[in-house]
């Protein structure tokens, strides 16, 4: 697994390729943070916990984290201020905001302050770990990517065509976007909510699981007639595109 080089504010370079994923949890609810740490360590992620905003800022400034999970409301310094401070100092470590507030304007405020993703409490741990993983592997490539390849599946981003084992697969525009997202996160679990947010850009929960229907359509197109299925269902979490 290759990560981008993450540089903390301390100037200490961190090479995630050499080690495992390390994230900072800034959360004043110690029980919640503990449960989160246990859940994330199950997936092999190392966590460091800071119990308030100021401690969190100090820890984040030391650098060396792949993702910061930051609660919105905390004593001493709130999450928004913490992230704004880091961003002003040039720290670009991905941030996942956690909040008990669920209104749209709260989410917008979080993203404006420099957050990269937003999760409303209470959340499923599968949702949390999927989002943390997605953030950690988000790679900022200097040059514009023109091809994505996952196993024998190839996506041409310029020509907007997809081939598997050399056979062209016809996709609707939305199906193309859906597959692109899955391919960019190949090997990771992505939840239904993540797909709805990142592909459709809706931030509500539909009463019926409409995403499942879209996935099964896509699956029929990319997996049907091939010897091994790539689009897997992850129980209790969502989906994963695997080689």
């Amino acid at each position: 697994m290759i990560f981008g080089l993450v540089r903390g504010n301390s100037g200490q370079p961190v090479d995630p390729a050499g080690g495992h994923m390390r994230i900072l949890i800034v959360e004043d609810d110690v029980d919640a943070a503990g449960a989160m740490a246990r859940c994330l360590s199950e997936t092999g992620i190392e966590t460091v916990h800071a119990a308030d905003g100021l401690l969190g800022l100090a820890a984040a400034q030391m650098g060396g984290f792949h993702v910061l999970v930051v609660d919105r409301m905390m004593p001493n310094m709130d999450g928004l201020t913490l992230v704004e401070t880091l961003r002003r100092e040039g720290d670009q470590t991905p941030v996942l905001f956690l909040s008990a507030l669920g209104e749209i304007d709260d989410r917008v405020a979080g993203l404006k302050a420099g957050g990269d993703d937003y999760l409303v409490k209470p959340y499923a741990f599968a949702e949390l770990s999927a989002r943390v993983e997605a953030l950690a592997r988000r790679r900022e490539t200097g040059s514009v990517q023109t091809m994505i390849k996952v196993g024998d599946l190839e996506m041409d981003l310029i020509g907007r065509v997809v081939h598997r084992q050399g056979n062209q697969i016809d996709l609707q525009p939305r199906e193309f976007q859906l597959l692109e997202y899955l391919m960019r996160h190949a090997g990771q679990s992505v939840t239904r909510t993540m797909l709805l947010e990142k592909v459709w850009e809706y931030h509500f929960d539909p009463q019926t699981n409409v995403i499942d229907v879209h996935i099964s359509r896509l699956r029929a197109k990319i997996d049907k007639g091939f010897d091994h299925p790539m689009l897997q269902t992850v129980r209790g979490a969502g989906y994963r595109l695997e080689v």
Partner: protein
Amino acid sequence: MAIALPRVFRTTPFRLTLLFLTVFAASASIFLGYIYVATAGEVTSRADQAITQEIQSLTGVYRQGGVKALNRSMVERAAGDRPFLYLLRDKTGQKVTGSLEASPVEGVIGAPSSVNFNVTDTDPDGAEIRHSARGQQVRLDGGEILFVAADVSAAESFVLEILRAIWGAGALVILLGLAGGIVISRNVNETMAGLNRVVLAVQGGHIAARVKLRGVNDEFDELASGLNDMLDRLERSMGGLRHVGDAIAHDLRSPLSRLRARLELALIEAEAGKGNAQAALVQALEDADAVLATFNAVLAITRLQSAVEAPDQVQFDPGDLAAGVAELYEPLCEDKAIEFKLEATPALAVRGNREFIAQALANILDNAVKYTPQGGAVRLRVRRRASGEVEFSVTDTGLGVPEPDRPRVVQRFVRLENSRSQPGAGLGLSLVAAVAEAHGGRLELDEGPGTLDGSGPGLRVALVLPRLG
């Protein structure tokens, strides 16, 4: 030390009356003072003119006929009804003739100035009466000194009478004003007390208290009816809140009880070393998620309802938004062999929160797909009405909602008998209604195109947004 005045003196109308009275009294004083000065001045100047004329006339007599003629004329005049007083003295100052014994002045004094002095007289009862008089004195050509005066006591008492009348009128005005102020204050005070009683009652928890209108449509009635309207709305929303509280308690109690039972059973079985703990946990998690989903939906609805208007409103093309949501639901329809069609008038514009409106539309479509049998048809239309309002309407060929139930299905947690078999908490349309209201629009439920076999009317649900501007 502060003196505790009776309440009526502390009221605003009374204070305003006092202020008005003060201003009125001040201006009346200036006005009446001017009248006094003008009247008094007129009286003296007339007297002075008469004296000057009398002296001129006497001087004329003297020039023609000498002291003798003057003397005779003075005697004649004194016997007449002219109210003049005379004194003629010779060169040495000895009295020659006249009705006065002595002159109040030595030198010559003439028009335009006169001298004021008093003369005493005796009335028929022998009592002394003081008269005020004004006089002028001239030296005649022969050296004699002539003093002519006029009794001005009558004129003076006239002026005094005017002054007294002015004082009396002023006092009367102030008294009447005070009385009026008290009456008005009492009246206003009573009305205000009625309002106050209601405010205190509501503070004390009696939300049903209302102000009685006097039926005169004045500003107090307006205030009172405004207060009553406000209380009505407050009472309704409190009732709504209580309803939500009850509904949440009711709707969350059973899944929570189920969750608890499942966990307890799993624990007992795990301790006994039997049963499938993992399956029980999966079930418990699902129960918990259902509870949370209900909770979140209720929260979203109440937040929308308590907001003055939906946040983050932008102008957008409703056709685009509908196309996006339609695209999300289209495969679902296809799976259920439902014919789905979107008809949108291009290039319309509405203003609103895209996210909320998309969610509302998703909820309507969700219901339509849920309640339309296989082989049915769902149609989503976006168009502008003649009124300028923009409507998103969804028709389906399901059984529809009987007319008497239509207002009810919009309420929170209301689920009709034949929908119980379907998943959902009965919050979908409540959210749509809340979204409509937060945009100044409304939700309409009608008959649809009917089921294919004619067993039901189908349903038409329309989210109507107000026209721009």
